[in-house]
């Protein structure tokens, strides 16, 4: 029951993050919205590891009535957390490079400058 609730919450979080990426005009806020999406996916993996009624993959025995946490999604999502950490760091580096040159974080201003440069 809790597992299903967690999954629904994580999907709502993903939608909120995706809408935030579109609506905010600041690069840092866009990156933070991406962080919300990534955290929601991590939460969803916590939800799907709550199991009951089938046999866990590591230990043998009778688990047909027990509730337990499946270890594989947890092991898997640690890799996902590391990847999202690396992506956030890299995107902040790019934001710093852009800010040092143009002294603005507004997406529309930056795109206007680049389109004028191309002409």
């Amino acid at each position, binding site marked *: 029951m809790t597992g299903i609730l967690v999954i629904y919450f994580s*999907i709502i979080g*993903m939608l909120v993050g*995706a809408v935030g*990426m*579109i609506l905010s005009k600041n*690069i840092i806020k*866009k*990156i933070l919205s*991406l962080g919300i*999406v*990534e955290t929601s*996916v991590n939460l*969803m*993996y916590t939800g*799907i590891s709550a199991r009951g009624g*089938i046999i866990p*993959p590591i230990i043998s025995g009778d688990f047909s009535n027990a509730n337990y946490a499946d270890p*594989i*999604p947890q092991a*898997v999502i640690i*890799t*996902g957390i590391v*990847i*999202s950490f*690396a*992506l956030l760091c*890299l*995107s902040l580096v*790019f*934001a710093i*490079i*852009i800010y040092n*040159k*143009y002294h603005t974080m507004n*997406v529309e201003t*930056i*795109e206007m400058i*680049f*389109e004028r*440069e*191309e002409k």
Partner: protein
Amino acid sequence: MIALVFLPVLGGVICLVLKKRKNVSLIIAIVTALVGGSVLPFVIFDNASIDIGNWGSLGIGLAIDELAIPFLLSTFIVMLAVILNSIKKGYDGFFYALILILYGTLNSIFLSRDLFSIFVTVELASIISFILVSYEKKPRQAWASLKYLLLSSLGLNFYLLGIGIVYMETGSFAMDSLEQVSTIATVLIFGGLAVKSGLFFFSMWLPDAHSNAPIEVSPILSGLIVKLDVYLSIRFITYSSFGWMRDTYMFIGIVSAIVGVVFAVNSKNAKRLLAYHTISQVGFMLVNCDKSSAWHGFSHAIFKTLLFLVVGNISERLGTKEYTKWSGKITRVEYAFLLIGSLAIAGFPMTSGCVTKEIIIHGACCPSLKILLLIASAGTAMSFSKFIFLKPGKSSSRPAANTVAAYSILSGVIIVHGIIGFEIYMFESLFAVIAGVAAYLLLRKFLRPLPVYFERIDSALSSYLVLFLISIVLAIILSS
């Protein structure tokens, strides 16, 4: 089989340790690329499959079959050409380390049979390509790279959600469990990977990133990184849960093939023109998603690498990317290779582009689709007439030997593939080429660059999400 993944990564790590010594790391890069290529025949003719670790079905499966072979071959040839072209450009060991680790990662994606392993390797390839796009640290490149990063990591999060649902339903991350999963998982996997595919409306980061990347990086992006989604789509569509995707891809592919050509014909910037053609050619590949598209992916990787290298070297030498200013300034050698690449992408007989593109056009399911594909093909010839009608000048500067070696390897592959695969009905494709050239001569006064509205980050994000929602609705309708 593990050697194909392990050796390039090992070479990359050695380059990273010796990054101050430019010549040593260059030699290591060339040797590693050649060793990777010489291991390839043993792997291809082996047809084996292994599970790493003693975990049985829980382990990560590696296997090879006929769908992966064109991609493995193109990875080797493109990497070799790129490394040969980068000699004497002053790149340090860090660049070669990134290139070699990317080589191992790409091989691992094409061999892997595990959904989560594919997620990790696709993310690793993406992170390396973000760094490579902004390698010269110009703000323009950093912006293109940031746009690519935001879109691509949003898409891959949807993919991660999709494989989470696959795990919840089947209890395994192995690719065989895709046989019976619900439609929502398949549409999340499709939509998540589509952001990297280069289809129009799905991945509008592409023209900016491909046209602003350094010379050696654009071929890798266009020839290999875009092919990840093409390969995975061809692979996934063989599973029965993805049956609804065949019609969807036919529709999206033809739209992408035509719209990409319309933007390319009107472009004035040579590298942007090539970037729009990547969109169009990916559309061609996904129209019928089977073995023929895998071989079109191979030939596209080869001729697009040749074109990007020639155009990149010319624009660096002359200091401008506008092809109208090149006339009379390029040497004869460069013109010859530019001509081979242009004819190959336009589908002239006796080149590899003709062979694979004609198989796709003849394999199309209905006559109207065939006509639309022929129109897109004529549009390709029309936009590459811009390069065909350039005049070579009598400039005495000789191009460097390593550059000519890289060009010759690629042109040799194009011509040999074109002659081996030639069939007599392929003279029909001459009509599309002639029609395209004639259309160019008629219409060249009216060509103006189209607005870049779709490439702005907000419209790119919203067009991706809107198309994603439409494909979710479409999938639920088609599968019920």
